[in-house]
């Protein structure tokens, strides 16, 4: 993936596409290093929402009138954009949900209810986000299934031998992250899937942190389920995608009942709509879907490879510059990683660091990043996480380093 930093990527032009980046905070230019929590939005996305409500809005899939048809066409065009973006075989495999969290809950609930038995094993890893732990705990409680955890090594890489050992006759599901939100580790997903499939075990991939940085081809990965959130992909919040193989989705019971997901309703018997609508009860986030399609058009327009090269350059530069600070220790040093600089400083708590950086205009995330098990793994409560988006610059990394100097001044370390 690593490419020369000289690849043409007009960063100044790109930054002008994101209105919020010209803001000043505490009279300092905003240096936004929290895209892993939520990315900022380009004008195209903001305009798509405005355009939808101003020119092509009505409820979808029901109305015979002009506006309903227009909104339906726009929404379904976005579904096709998303299908193509992750190379799903069919639009029927693209289910709109509120976000990755809802996608995982949907699979845990609908697939789990049908397939998990007492003693069934679900394999997770030590570096999962809470949203890929708790839904499985909930369904495990209801079904008697058991959760098994793949450990990670000191660098933050999955222990693949341990993973292979955990795969056994009782394994019912593997649900793992594609990129760790706390560490930036890229997991060897194609290999993970291959090993699981050799035992007939399906794999859910939490793609939240992967999708903004890596090209994702669900058919090449052979993932059974792949989830991601729109808001981390420069799209709106409140909209996300669950990809699932059609045969698996077909066999699953619906998630929520309501309008849109039905075929025929009577008090004697209700039949369900075909995919994808079976899993889309209620009026969807219409403008959100359309704007997510716009966000994908925007980043594919910039070029995924160019974005990756730019972000890899910043990751390498940031690793080098932050690495010069004596009291700084990186948390997550996997050979294969992307977009995340997670670290601690000796004797200064991440929360205090975050507050001081904030007053320098630098937005970072501090805390456990909703990944407490991996914090426990490293025997820490929290880290500072500077996450990189396509709009960040080397100059902003320099500002971050200078701001960390202020932390050391104040704390005298």
């Amino acid at each position, binding site marked *: 993936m690593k490419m020369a930093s000289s690849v043409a990527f007009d960063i100044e032009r790109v930054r002008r596409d994101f209105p919020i980046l010209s803001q000043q905070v*505490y009279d300092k230019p905003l240096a936004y290093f929290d895209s892993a929590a939520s990315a900022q939005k380009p004008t195209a996305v903001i305009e798509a929402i405005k355009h939808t409500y101003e020119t092509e809005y009505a409820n979808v899939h029901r109305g015979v009138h002009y506006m309903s048809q227009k909104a339906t066409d726009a929404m379904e065009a976005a579904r096709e954009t998303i299908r193509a973006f992750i190379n799903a075989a069919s639009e029927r495999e693209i289910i709109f949900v509120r976000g990755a969290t809802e996608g995982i809950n949907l699979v845990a609930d609908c697939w789990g209810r049908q397939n998990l038995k007492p003693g069934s094993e679900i394999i997770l890893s030590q570096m999962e986000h809470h949203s890929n732990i708790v839904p499985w705990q909930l369904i495990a409680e209801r079904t008697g299934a058991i959760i098994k955890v793949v450990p990670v090594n000191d660098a933050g890489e999955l222990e693949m031998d341990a993973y292979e050992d955990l795969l056994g006759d009782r394994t019912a599901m593997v649900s793992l992250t594609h990129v760790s939100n706390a560490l930036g580790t890229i997991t060897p997903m194609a290999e993970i899937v291959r090993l699981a499939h050799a035992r007939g075990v399906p794999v859910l991939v939490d793609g939240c942190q992967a999708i903004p940085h890596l090209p994702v081809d669900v058919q090449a990965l052979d993932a059974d389920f792949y989830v991601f959130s729109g808001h981390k992909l420069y799209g709106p919040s409140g909209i996300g995608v669950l990809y699932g193989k059609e045969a698996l989705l077909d066999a699953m019971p619906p998630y929520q009942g309501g309008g849109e997901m039905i075929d025929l309703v009577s008090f004697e018997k209700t039949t369900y709509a075909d995919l994808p609508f079976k899993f889309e009860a209620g009026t969807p986030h219409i403008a959100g879907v359309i704007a997510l399609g716009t966000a994908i058009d925007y980043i594919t327009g910039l070029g995924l490879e160019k974005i990756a090269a730019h972000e890899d350059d910043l990751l390498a530069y940031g690793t080098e510059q932050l690495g010069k600070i004596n009291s700084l220790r990186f948390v997550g040093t996997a050979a294969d990683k992307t977009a995340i600089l997670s670290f601690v400083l000796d*004797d*200064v*708590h*991440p*929360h*205090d660091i975050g*507050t*001081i950086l904030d*007053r*320098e205009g630098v937005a970072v995330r*501090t*805390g*456990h990043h909703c990944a*407490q098990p991996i*914090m426990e793994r490293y025997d820490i*409560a*929290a880290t500072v996480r500077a996450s990189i988006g396509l709009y960040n610059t080397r100059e902003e990394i320099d500002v971050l380093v200078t701001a960390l100097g*202020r932390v050391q001044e*104040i*704390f*005298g370390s």
Partner: protein
Amino acid sequence: MSTGLSDLYQEVILDHSRHPRNFGAAESANRQARGNNPLCGDRVTVYLAVDGHHINDARFDARGCAISIASASMMTEMIKGKTVAQAKSLFDRFHMLVASESGEANGDSDEDMTELASLSGVRAFPTRIKCATLAWHAMSAALDGADDDVKTE
């Protein structure tokens, strides 16, 4: 120093955070309560030796930021030797000091409140007020004999 930071990280606070007083579990304690901040994963346990209405000893154990450690450290120094009612009153006034709109504590200013005023800088940092009050909530719960952990949320 940037706006507000010099008020937040005063020398007295940095000193308490670097050298917390009454740190570590107390063997003589007959009351204890734990406080969690689910937002950041910080934890504090407050240990009290209470005899009737009197707090004979107060100690704490914590994993947290400078503000939460300093606040806990100052608190244990102050409530040691006080009555339960006095400790609760001090908590109320401290809460007013750091969390109220006006930042005015009720009642007369005394030596304790003068020292606690060094923590009033958190008022300019709304996300950090919970750091300052976590140990106090745990102390209050320990006095009430609550079984559950205290949470800031």
